[in-house]
Structures are given as C-alpha cells and as structure tokens.
C-alpha cells in the first residue's frame, strides 16, 4: 500500500492540473483559451496551475503572435506524459485494492 501511494504524484493532485494534463495527453498542443473553455476556469487560476506544471517540467510553454494577438500554447513534455501515466496507474491500483 505504501508503495502505491508513493506513485501518486503530488503535482497532479488537483482537479485543474489533472484536467490540463488530460487534455495535453490526447492533443498535441492546446492554447490558453482552449484550455480555459474546456476546464471552465478563470485566467488567473489557469495561469497559476500551468505555471506549477511548467516548473515541474511536465509541460512546455510556447509563446507566439498570431497576427497581432499573442498566443500561448502548451504541450506535454515526454517527462510529463510518463509521470501522468504512472499517476493514472497508481490511481487504478488504489481503486482496485479497496
């Protein structure tokens, strides 16, 4: 049991961060507005959670201009994908155990 809990990743222990990673697992990349609409969160809230995931090196941020509008897009890093898979596996095991 102890062993499994070790694999539960603290970085993903939040609904919004879980959501961001889920979107980025199945999409090559997603921009700020797309994520905001999908998750139904405010700008500030999303920004702080993407920042947290970025510090862990789980997602990478790319800023560019589309026309004159700044556009921020996010993608999951290989490290982030691996960590997220491990997290899901741990969740599944936890459910099976009980």
């Amino acid at each position, binding site marked *: 049991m102890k062993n499994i809990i070790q694999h539960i990743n603290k970085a993903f222990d939040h609904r919004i961060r*879980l959501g961001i990673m889920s*979107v980025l697992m199945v*999409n090559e990349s*997603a921009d700020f507005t*797309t994520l905001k609409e999908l998750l139904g969160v405010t700008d500030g809230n999303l920004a702080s959670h993407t920042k947290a995931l970025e510090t862990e090196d789980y997602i990478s941020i790319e800023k560019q201009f589309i026309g004159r509008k700044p556009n921020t897009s996010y993608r999951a890093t290989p490290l982030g994908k691996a960590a997220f898979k491990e997290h899901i596996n741990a*969740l*599944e095991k936890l*459910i099976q155990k009980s």
Partner: protein
Amino acid sequence: METKDYLKDIQDIKEMMSKSSQFISLSGLSGILAGVYALVGAWIAYKTIYFDTSTMGNYKHLVISQEAVYKLLVIAAMVVILSLATGLFLSIRKAKKNNETVWNSAAKRLFINFMIPMVTGGFFILFLIEKEMLGLVAPLTLLFYGLACVNASKYTLGSVRYLGITMIVLGLLSTWFLGYGLLFWAIGFGFCHILYGSVMYFKYERK
C-alpha cells in the same frame, strides 16, 4: 484518502480526454433531416431521368441529355447545401445547449479530416462528368462519402464510423450492380442517414 475521490479523478480524466479530442456536438437530428432531403432529391432526380429524356427503360441504354445532367447537378448541389446548413445550424444549437464552443480545435480536426476525401472525390467526380463518364458517378459519391466518414469518425461520435462503413459497402455494391445507382444513392444518403441519425439522436441527445 477515500477511494471515491480517486474514482472521480479517473472519470474526470476520461471525460476531459474525449471532450478535448472529439467533437461531440454533432447533431443526430441533422442526419435524419439530411436523409429526408436526399430522398426528396432522389425522387426529383428519378423524375428527371425517366420522364425528361427521350429514351425510356433499360438503364444501360439510357441516354441522359445535357440539360438533364445539369438539372441533376443542381439537385445534388441543393441537397448537399441544405444538409450542410442544417447540420451546422443544429450542431451550433446543440453546442450552445451543452455550453461548448462550436468552432473548437476538435471541430477543426473533424472538418479537415472529413473534407480531404470529400474534396478529392468531388473533383474526381466533376472530372468524370466533364469527360461524360456518368456511369460511375453514383457509386463514387457513396464511396468517397463513406471514406470521408470513416476518416472523420476518430474525431467525433462513434456511430459515424459505422455510417461510413455502410456507405462504402453500398458504394461497392452499386459499382457491381451498375445501373441501379439512384436506388443505392437513395438507400445510402436517404435511409442510412435517417437510420444512423436516429441512432445518434436516441443514444446521445435524448436524456
């Protein structure tokens, strides 16, 4: 730590994955209506072919006048435009009801992957008409439409895949039984749309 929370986590993950990668606002009702338009179109086309041309009877010796070809093209274009407009209108309505944006990245992917086989087929068929090889037009519309549906199905509701496969089978059958193109056309674009539209409607929309 309660297990309930983890179960909820997994459900959230699953929901977010499909919501972000699939266009789920596709309306089943629009499929049903598209089928109705197609049946009406097929009926008018039938009238045009068999009552406006001088040769009656056997398909293989059927000579379609230039005028009738244009009339058929107009009918086909009308059916396509009406169907697309209905599909767009009802999908926008459904998306609004579900609090989703219509033109999201999933919708874009759906559109692009649907249009690649459709545009290819469209040009191919137009060139065939230009070269007066009309026999294969009906089977080819079914085949290309079927391929477009199968290709697009990864990005939307699963039923679209089966609609596509049915269309491909009908397209091949109608190539074999050449001459019954209009009949297969009515079965495919008419009845199959109504059938799969109803399946989608009852499966996803009536809750």
